[in-house]
């Protein structure tokens, strides 16, 4: 009787808990990207500003440093919620695998702590430290941002390919080797993919702000540099990312064939498999898709007659939801290709003419590239997370068995949704204000503004 109600609660909690986690992580992942990449872009611009004694560059760097402060604060609070949710929503995962899965988070805790400290130093030290000391203070921030991303994604890679432990007859973890567990087969492709994604999201998103300004007729140094520096970084990362995409697809094919089959909407195991774009999956088949003959076999095996495993090889209750995964994957690849085209146009014009492409269509494309990069990021993340279902630890622990059976847990989802709605609106308001008037202080700053700040602010309005 007792256990019946517990199971009923767990079943009731599963979907809302997944939605709550998706919402919290989907929100946090955007802000972590800026935490990883914005420090590098900012300090590079600061360095160029000092080197060329160019006030436009220095001003740009200061604006970005402040935006970094706001985005970092938003990322920090959303990250705190996540560390609670890990236990609140998925105690079955933490209870059984905490000693392996939790370990990278200990390291991440340090990385984040150090980043928080140096974000504080960097913002507080603006105009208070020598340029050299100030730029040096950004180095730990850049390194710890990347390290933090590595540890978190390594934990996620472990969920995809659990290694570094044995299970005894009762299914208990024995012989846990937490260091080894951090370096499973998915770790490097996934972490590199994520870090490049962070630089792309940040680069395109920052550039898109200045593209909008230029479309409104502002063509000063401030806007040109503001567009060019982040866009160049993002454009350089884009082709590398496409190569890494191939690497990660092969890793998935090898280690998580069910996920790959869902990504491609493939039911039958065959040789010479076509690459399917779009379409709807029902009745064990993908309908209305655009087919590229032998495409998938070529991509996975670099051989047109290679055999690719389909979903028919897996029991029905071990298949991920196909439509979500397939479409999310297609959208990610599609957006990535569109960004690649943008990068090529920039590279071509810069190579031939040494200037930003003049066409308003180029600026319009850059203006939407930020949103496109964020959408690609979310789609990629949906692909890997939903594609792992129904497992939370691939092949070992089902998500349904990890969710907390606590009564009433599902109500938390509505609370989180409301909180994030308010948080999103506030972040957008503050960033817009920051874009409009450059004297807006960042949260970590202590009145770095001149004493006549109040009169200035009145003048701005």
């Amino acid at each position, binding site marked *: 009787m007792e256990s019946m109600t517990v199971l009923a609660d767990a079943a009731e909690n599963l979907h809302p808990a997944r939605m709550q986690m998706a919402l919290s992580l989907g929100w946090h992942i955007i802000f972590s990207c800026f935490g990883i990449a914005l420090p590098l872009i900012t300090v590079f611009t600061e360095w160029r500003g000092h080197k060329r004694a160019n006030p436009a560059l220095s001003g740009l760097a200061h604006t970005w440093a402040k935006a970094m402060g706001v985005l970092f604060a938003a990322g920090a*609070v959303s990250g705190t919620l996540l560390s609670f949710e890990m236990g609140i929503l998925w105690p079955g995962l933490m209870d059984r695998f905490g000693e392996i899965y939790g370990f990278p988070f200990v*390291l991440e805790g*340090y990385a984040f702590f150090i980043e928080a400290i140096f974000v504080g130093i960097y913002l507080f030290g603006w105009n208070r430290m020598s340029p050299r000391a100030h730029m040096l203070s950004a180095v730990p921030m850049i390194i710890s941002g990347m390290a933090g991303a590595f540890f978190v994604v390594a934990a996620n890679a472990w969920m995809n390919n659990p290694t570094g432990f044995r299970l005894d007859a009762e299914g208990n973890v024995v012989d846990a080797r937490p260091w080894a567990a951090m370096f499973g087969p998915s770790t490097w492709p996934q972490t590199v993919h994520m870090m490049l994604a962070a630089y792309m999201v940040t680069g395109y998103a920052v550039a898109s702000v200045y593209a909008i300004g230029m479309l409104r007729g502002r063509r000063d140094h401030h806007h040109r540099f503001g567009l060019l520096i982040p866009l160049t970084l993002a454009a350089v990362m884009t082709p590398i990312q496409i190569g890494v995409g191939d690497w990660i697809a092969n890793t998935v094919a090898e280690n998580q064939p069910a996920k790959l089959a869902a990504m491609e909407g493939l039911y039958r195991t065959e040789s010479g498999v076509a690459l399917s774009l779009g379409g709807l999956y029902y009745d064990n088949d993908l309908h209305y898709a655009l087919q590229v003959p032998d495409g998938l076999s070529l991509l996975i095996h670099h051989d047109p007659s290679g055999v690719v495993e389909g979903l028919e090889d897996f029991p029905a209750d071990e298949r991920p939801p196909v439509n979500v995964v397939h479409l999310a994957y297609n959208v990610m690849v599609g957006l990535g290709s569109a960004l690649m085209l943008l990068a090529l146009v920039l590279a071509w014009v810069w190579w031939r003419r040494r200037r930003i492409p003049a066409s308003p269509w180029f600026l319009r494309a850059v203006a939407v590239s930020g949103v496109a990069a964020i959408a690609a990021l979310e789609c990629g993340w949906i692909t890997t997370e939903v594609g792992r279902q129904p497992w939370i630890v691939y092949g070992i622990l089902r998500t349904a068995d990890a969710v907390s059976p606590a009564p009433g847990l599902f109500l938390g989802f509505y609370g989180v949704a409301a909180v994030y709605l308010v948080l999103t609106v506030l972040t957008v308001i503050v960033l817009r204000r920051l874009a409009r008037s450059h004297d807006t202080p960042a949260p970590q700053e202590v009145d770095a503004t001149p004493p006549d700040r109040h009169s200035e602010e009145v003048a701005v309005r």
Partner: protein
Amino acid sequence: MTLAEVVLGIMFVGLLAYGLFGGADFGAGIWDLLAGGTRRGARQRELIEHSLGPVWEANHVWLIFVLVVLWTGFSGAFASVVSTMYIPLTLAAFGMIARGAAFAFRKSITTLPMRRFLGAAFALSSLITPYFLGAVVGGVASGRVPLGIAAGDVVTSWINPTSVLGGVMAVLVCAYLAAVFLCADARREGADDLADAFRIRALVAAGVTGVAGLAGLLVLRSDAPLLWEGLTGRALGVIALSVAAGVAAVVFLIRQRYGSARIASALAVAAILVGWAVAQYPYILLPEVTIEEAAVGRTTLVAMLVALLAGAAILVPALIYLFRLFQRTQPDRMPSDTAVDSEAVY
């Protein structure tokens, strides 16, 4: 000392740091709430904002540190506590989000209604977050969290006499610490009148906290007999130290020796937390799960110890540098009364 105890001990250092730094941070928010109307409270709020500034994020990362060490080193106990206590923990997390966001964004927003909204969110969440965290501690300390996922009662585990005591004490201690800390900050910024105002608050808060603490012992005797036994037995020395440090802090406050008062008050608060740990030892979940039983495998504990020590070797100097940079460099003195006038333009 066993390996598990060493790892848990390091976690506890993080918890102490969170209690002191994070606690003072929450307390500053509570005084922000009580600072009065927009005009009258403006200078106090400005001092509070000055004092938190670049360190507030660092102050709160301690909690994440505590959580990750617990879930990795003591996974089963962690899962038990968090799944049983999910309601107060979710509410505390919401409080942290509201607080962090409001504090971060308040500075960048200049319209008065928005500022008031964010200010209220900051101050109110400063009150509720420590309350819920204290209630969780009360529930664990009174043995209301059994081992097992959501095995405890999700309501009475945090709505009970010891949890109420824990929550109220957490709020009082935060307010007390903040008032003492702000005295020294106000003096350093040359605002002696504010230092006096916070000195009175610190003294009142010290009195109220002391009385509540003593009255609370009676609550523990009936509601949490095991904890009571430990506090009045093995932990008696630590509790005596807390009382002595608390009295010393009052003396220092009366004599306006704010630096010494800061140390004494921190010691008094730290001793309360240490007293709780000593009283509960060797159990991690009263009344039956010991630290040894809850600990994970040896390789993970060793890996954690290596990571924790190596991490601390990088972290601690960086943290000291941040605090020193911040405490040393105060080029802008507190704006005097003219700031209040310009505040009116918002």
